[in-house]
Protein backbone atom coordinates (compact mmCIF):
# COMPACT_ATOMS: atom_id res chain seq x y z
CA UNK A 1 0.00 0.00 0.00
CA UNK A 2 3.05 2.25 -0.15
CA UNK A 3 2.47 3.67 -3.63
CA UNK A 4 -0.50 4.69 -5.76
CA UNK A 5 0.13 1.72 -8.03
CA UNK A 6 -0.03 -0.88 -5.27
CA UNK A 7 -3.12 0.80 -3.83
CA UNK A 8 -4.95 0.74 -7.17
CA UNK A 9 -3.89 -2.88 -7.62
CA UNK A 10 -5.20 -3.86 -4.20
CA UNK A 11 -8.42 -1.93 -4.77
CA UNK A 12 -9.08 -3.61 -8.13
CA UNK A 13 -8.36 -7.06 -6.68
CA UNK A 14 -10.64 -6.45 -3.73
CA UNK A 15 -13.45 -5.15 -5.96
CA UNK A 16 -13.29 -8.22 -8.16
CA UNK A 17 -13.34 -10.47 -5.09
CA UNK A 18 -16.44 -8.68 -3.80
CA UNK A 19 -18.03 -8.99 -7.25
CA UNK A 20 -17.36 -12.72 -7.23
CA UNK A 21 -18.99 -12.96 -3.81
CA UNK A 22 -22.03 -10.98 -4.97
CA UNK A 23 -22.38 -13.18 -8.03
CA UNK A 24 -22.32 -16.27 -5.86
CA UNK A 25 -24.90 -14.71 -3.53
CA UNK A 26 -27.07 -13.93 -6.57
CA UNK A 27 -26.85 -17.60 -7.55
CA UNK A 28 -27.81 -18.66 -4.02
CA UNK A 29 -30.95 -16.49 -4.08
CA UNK A 30 -32.21 -18.34 -7.16
CA UNK A 31 -30.70 -21.79 -6.68
CA UNK A 32 -33.86 -23.44 -5.43
CA UNK A 33 -36.38 -21.77 -7.74
CA UNK A 34 -38.88 -23.95 -9.53
CA UNK A 35 -38.56 -23.22 -13.22
CA UNK A 36 -41.54 -25.27 -14.28
CA UNK A 37 -44.53 -23.85 -16.12
CA UNK A 38 -47.64 -25.02 -17.86
CA UNK A 39 -47.95 -25.11 -21.64
CA UNK A 40 -50.77 -25.79 -24.04
CA UNK A 41 -49.95 -27.39 -27.37
CA UNK A 42 -52.41 -28.26 -30.10
CA UNK A 43 -51.92 -29.71 -33.54
CA UNK A 44 -53.89 -28.16 -36.37
CA UNK A 45 -52.72 -30.21 -39.31
CA UNK A 46 -50.91 -33.54 -39.18
CA UNK A 47 -49.63 -35.45 -42.17
CA UNK A 48 -46.91 -37.91 -43.00
CA UNK A 49 -44.96 -38.41 -46.21
CA UNK A 50 -42.67 -41.12 -47.47
CA UNK A 51 -39.80 -39.41 -49.21
CA UNK A 52 -36.08 -40.05 -49.81
CA UNK A 53 -33.84 -38.71 -47.08
CA UNK A 54 -30.97 -37.28 -49.09
CA UNK A 55 -29.17 -36.23 -45.94
CA UNK A 56 -28.81 -39.88 -44.91
CA UNK A 57 -28.92 -43.06 -46.98
CA UNK A 58 -31.26 -41.75 -49.68
CA UNK A 59 -33.76 -44.40 -48.72
CA UNK A 60 -37.39 -43.52 -48.42
CA UNK A 61 -38.13 -42.64 -44.82
CA UNK A 62 -41.17 -41.30 -43.06
CA UNK A 63 -41.25 -37.57 -42.61
CA UNK A 64 -43.87 -36.11 -40.34
CA UNK A 65 -45.27 -32.64 -40.69
CA UNK A 66 -47.63 -30.77 -38.47
CA UNK A 67 -48.88 -27.27 -37.95
CA UNK A 68 -49.41 -26.53 -34.31
CA UNK A 69 -50.48 -23.92 -31.79
CA UNK A 70 -48.44 -23.14 -28.73
CA UNK A 71 -49.45 -21.26 -25.63
CA UNK A 72 -47.25 -20.72 -22.60
CA UNK A 73 -46.70 -18.02 -20.02
CA UNK A 74 -42.97 -18.06 -19.30
CA UNK A 75 -42.81 -14.65 -17.64
CA UNK A 76 -42.59 -16.06 -14.08
CA UNK A 77 -39.43 -17.91 -15.07
CA UNK A 78 -37.38 -14.76 -15.37
CA UNK A 79 -35.50 -13.38 -12.39
CA UNK A 80 -32.26 -11.48 -11.90
CA UNK A 81 -30.22 -14.62 -12.53
CA UNK A 82 -31.82 -15.53 -15.86
CA UNK A 83 -30.31 -14.17 -19.04
CA UNK A 84 -32.36 -16.10 -21.54
CA UNK A 85 -34.51 -19.14 -22.10
CA UNK A 86 -33.88 -21.65 -24.82
CA UNK A 87 -37.19 -23.37 -25.46
CA UNK A 88 -37.55 -26.35 -27.73
CA UNK A 89 -40.36 -28.62 -28.80
CA UNK A 90 -39.69 -32.34 -28.97
CA UNK A 91 -41.76 -35.10 -30.46
CA UNK A 92 -41.51 -38.39 -28.62
CA UNK A 93 -42.78 -41.66 -29.98
CA UNK A 94 -42.16 -45.38 -29.97
CA UNK A 95 -41.42 -47.50 -33.01
CA UNK A 96 -40.74 -51.20 -33.44
CA UNK A 97 -37.08 -50.28 -34.02
CA UNK A 98 -36.64 -47.98 -31.04
CA UNK A 99 -38.27 -47.86 -27.66
CA UNK A 100 -37.87 -44.08 -27.49
CA UNK A 101 -37.44 -41.61 -30.32
CA UNK A 102 -36.97 -37.92 -29.62
CA UNK A 103 -36.91 -35.35 -32.38
CA UNK A 104 -36.54 -31.62 -31.88
CA UNK A 105 -38.79 -29.92 -34.38
CA UNK A 106 -38.93 -26.32 -33.24
CA UNK A 107 -37.04 -24.00 -30.92
CA UNK A 108 -36.84 -20.38 -29.88
CA UNK A 109 -34.63 -18.14 -27.76
CA UNK A 110 -36.35 -15.71 -25.42
CA UNK A 111 -33.96 -13.13 -24.10
CA UNK A 112 -34.45 -11.15 -20.96
CA UNK A 113 -36.84 -8.27 -21.60
CA UNK A 114 -38.45 -9.92 -24.60
CA UNK A 115 -42.05 -11.01 -24.59
CA UNK A 116 -42.23 -14.28 -22.67
CA UNK A 117 -45.97 -14.69 -23.01
CA UNK A 118 -46.13 -17.09 -25.91
CA UNK A 119 -49.31 -17.36 -27.89
CA UNK A 120 -48.38 -18.73 -31.28
CA UNK A 121 -50.91 -19.86 -33.84
CA UNK A 122 -50.17 -22.12 -36.80
CA UNK A 123 -46.44 -22.63 -36.27
CA UNK A 124 -44.62 -24.66 -38.86
CA UNK A 125 -41.73 -26.82 -37.67
CA UNK A 126 -38.28 -25.30 -38.01
CA UNK A 127 -36.60 -28.68 -38.45
CA UNK A 128 -37.52 -31.77 -40.42
CA UNK A 129 -39.30 -34.48 -38.50
CA UNK A 130 -37.56 -37.53 -39.93
CA UNK A 131 -38.03 -41.01 -38.65
CA UNK A 132 -35.14 -43.41 -39.20
CA UNK A 133 -37.46 -45.81 -41.01
CA UNK A 134 -41.17 -46.10 -41.50
CA UNK A 135 -42.37 -45.68 -37.97
CA UNK A 136 -44.54 -42.60 -38.34
CA UNK A 137 -47.37 -43.70 -40.60
CA UNK A 138 -50.30 -44.71 -38.44
CA UNK A 139 -48.36 -44.08 -35.24
CA UNK A 140 -51.06 -43.61 -32.63
CA UNK A 141 -49.03 -42.11 -29.86
CA UNK A 142 -46.77 -39.17 -30.65
CA UNK A 143 -46.23 -36.71 -27.82
CA UNK A 144 -45.25 -33.10 -28.30
CA UNK A 145 -43.52 -31.62 -25.27
CA UNK A 146 -42.05 -28.19 -24.69
CA UNK A 147 -38.81 -28.06 -22.72
CA UNK A 148 -36.38 -25.30 -21.92
CA UNK A 149 -32.92 -24.52 -20.73
CA UNK A 150 -32.60 -21.65 -18.30
CA UNK A 151 -29.38 -19.75 -19.00
CA UNK A 152 -28.29 -17.96 -15.81
CA UNK A 153 -25.73 -15.28 -15.00
CA UNK A 154 -24.12 -17.70 -12.59
CA UNK A 155 -24.93 -21.19 -11.45
CA UNK A 156 -26.22 -24.39 -12.89
CA UNK A 157 -28.11 -24.74 -16.17
CA UNK A 158 -31.54 -26.20 -15.44
CA UNK A 159 -33.19 -28.29 -18.12
CA UNK A 160 -36.92 -28.28 -17.51
CA UNK A 161 -39.60 -30.39 -19.13
CA UNK A 162 -42.83 -28.46 -18.95
CA UNK A 163 -46.08 -29.85 -17.74
CA UNK A 164 -48.77 -29.99 -20.37
CA UNK A 165 -47.99 -32.03 -23.46
CA UNK A 166 -50.03 -32.96 -26.48
CA UNK A 167 -50.61 -36.43 -27.90
CA UNK A 168 -51.65 -37.01 -31.45
CA UNK A 169 -51.57 -39.74 -34.06
CA UNK A 170 -50.33 -39.71 -37.61
CA UNK A 171 -52.74 -40.63 -40.41
CA UNK A 172 -52.72 -44.15 -41.85
CA UNK A 173 -52.09 -42.94 -45.39
CA UNK A 174 -49.10 -41.11 -46.82
CA UNK A 175 -49.70 -37.68 -48.25
CA UNK A 176 -48.36 -37.44 -51.77
CA UNK A 177 -49.66 -34.10 -52.95
CA UNK A 178 -47.93 -30.85 -52.25
CA UNK A 179 -49.48 -28.61 -49.69
Amino acid at each position, binding site marked *: *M*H*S*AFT*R*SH*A*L*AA*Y*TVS*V*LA*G*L*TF*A*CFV*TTAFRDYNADTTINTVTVLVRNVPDYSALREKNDMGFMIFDLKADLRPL*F*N*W*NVKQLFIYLTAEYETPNNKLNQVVIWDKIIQRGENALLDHKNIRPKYYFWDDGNGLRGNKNVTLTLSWNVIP*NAGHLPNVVSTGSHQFSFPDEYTTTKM
Partner: protein
Amino acid sequence: MGLNDWFNSLHMDYDGQARAEKLSRIIILLFGFVGFIWGYIIQQFSETVRILGAGFILAAILTIPPWPIYRRKPLSWQKVRPQRSGDSDGEGKTKKKKQ
Protein backbone atom coordinates in the same frame (compact mmCIF):
# COMPACT_ATOMS: atom_id res chain seq x y z
CA MET B 1 10.78 22.88 -0.82
CA GLY B 2 13.41 20.30 -0.07
CA LEU B 3 13.70 16.80 -1.49
CA ASN B 4 12.32 15.31 1.70
CA ASP B 5 9.18 17.46 1.57
CA TRP B 6 8.65 16.63 -2.06
CA PHE B 7 8.97 12.91 -1.30
CA ASN B 8 6.53 13.18 1.58
CA SER B 9 4.00 14.98 -0.60
CA LEU B 10 3.87 11.93 -2.90
CA HIS B 11 3.70 9.21 -0.27
CA MET B 12 1.30 8.35 2.49
CA ASP B 13 2.74 7.69 5.89
CA TYR B 14 2.22 4.28 7.50
CA ASP B 15 -0.86 5.33 9.38
CA GLY B 16 -2.30 6.89 6.22
CA GLN B 17 -1.73 3.68 4.26
CA ALA B 18 -3.63 1.68 6.85
CA ARG B 19 -6.48 4.19 6.87
CA ALA B 20 -6.64 4.30 3.06
CA GLU B 21 -6.89 0.53 2.86
CA LYS B 22 -9.53 0.37 5.55
CA LEU B 23 -11.55 3.14 3.93
CA SER B 24 -11.39 1.57 0.47
CA ARG B 25 -12.63 -1.76 1.82
CA ILE B 26 -15.48 -0.12 3.71
CA ILE B 27 -16.57 1.78 0.58
CA ILE B 28 -16.44 -1.29 -1.67
CA LEU B 29 -18.30 -3.47 0.83
CA LEU B 30 -20.93 -0.79 1.42
CA PHE B 31 -21.58 -0.22 -2.27
CA GLY B 32 -21.59 -3.97 -2.89
CA PHE B 33 -24.12 -4.53 -0.14
CA VAL B 34 -26.39 -1.67 -1.21
CA GLY B 35 -26.08 -2.73 -4.85
CA PHE B 36 -27.01 -6.29 -3.96
CA ILE B 37 -30.15 -5.18 -2.11
CA TRP B 38 -31.16 -2.77 -4.88
CA GLY B 39 -30.45 -5.29 -7.62
CA TYR B 40 -32.55 -7.86 -5.81
CA ILE B 41 -35.44 -5.42 -5.42
CA ILE B 42 -35.54 -4.50 -9.10
CA GLN B 43 -34.32 -7.97 -10.18
CA GLN B 44 -31.45 -6.63 -12.26
CA PHE B 45 -28.00 -7.95 -11.44
CA SER B 46 -26.43 -5.50 -13.89
CA GLU B 47 -27.47 -2.68 -11.55
CA THR B 48 -25.61 -4.42 -8.73
CA VAL B 49 -22.48 -4.52 -10.85
CA ARG B 50 -22.94 -0.88 -11.84
CA ILE B 51 -23.29 0.27 -8.23
CA LEU B 52 -20.21 -1.72 -7.26
CA GLY B 53 -18.41 0.01 -10.14
CA ALA B 54 -19.47 3.40 -8.77
CA GLY B 55 -18.06 2.36 -5.39
CA PHE B 56 -14.82 1.38 -7.09
CA ILE B 57 -14.52 4.80 -8.71
CA LEU B 58 -15.30 6.59 -5.45
CA ALA B 59 -12.81 4.46 -3.51
CA ALA B 60 -10.21 5.07 -6.21
CA ILE B 61 -10.65 8.83 -5.98
CA LEU B 62 -10.62 8.83 -2.19
CA THR B 63 -7.87 6.36 -1.39
CA ILE B 64 -5.42 6.07 -4.29
CA PRO B 65 -3.98 9.61 -4.45
CA PRO B 66 -1.93 10.55 -1.36
CA TRP B 67 -4.35 13.15 -0.03
CA PRO B 68 -3.15 15.30 2.86
CA ILE B 69 -5.29 13.42 5.40
CA TYR B 70 -3.09 10.35 4.82
CA ARG B 71 0.07 12.34 5.60
CA ARG B 72 -0.68 13.57 9.09
CA LYS B 73 1.60 11.20 11.00
CA PRO B 74 4.92 11.13 9.19
CA LEU B 75 7.76 9.14 10.77
CA SER B 76 10.21 11.38 12.55
CA TRP B 77 13.53 10.17 11.24
CA GLN B 78 16.73 10.88 13.01
CA LYS B 79 18.92 13.54 11.53
CA VAL B 80 21.48 12.33 9.03
CA ARG B 81 24.79 11.83 10.77
CA PRO B 82 27.86 13.36 9.19
CA GLN B 83 29.58 10.53 7.30
CA ARG B 84 33.13 9.50 8.03
CA SER B 85 35.11 8.40 4.98
CA GLY B 86 36.26 5.15 6.64
CA ASP B 87 32.66 4.03 7.40
CA SER B 88 31.40 4.14 3.86
CA ASP B 89 34.41 2.07 2.67
CA GLY B 90 33.77 -0.46 5.39
CA GLU B 91 30.12 -0.81 4.44
CA GLY B 92 31.05 -1.40 0.84
CA LYS B 93 33.42 -4.19 1.80
CA THR B 94 30.93 -6.01 4.03
CA LYS B 95 28.30 -5.95 1.28
CA LYS B 96 30.76 -7.50 -1.13
CA LYS B 97 31.58 -10.24 1.36
CA LYS B 98 27.94 -11.10 1.83
CA GLN B 99 27.41 -11.52 -1.87
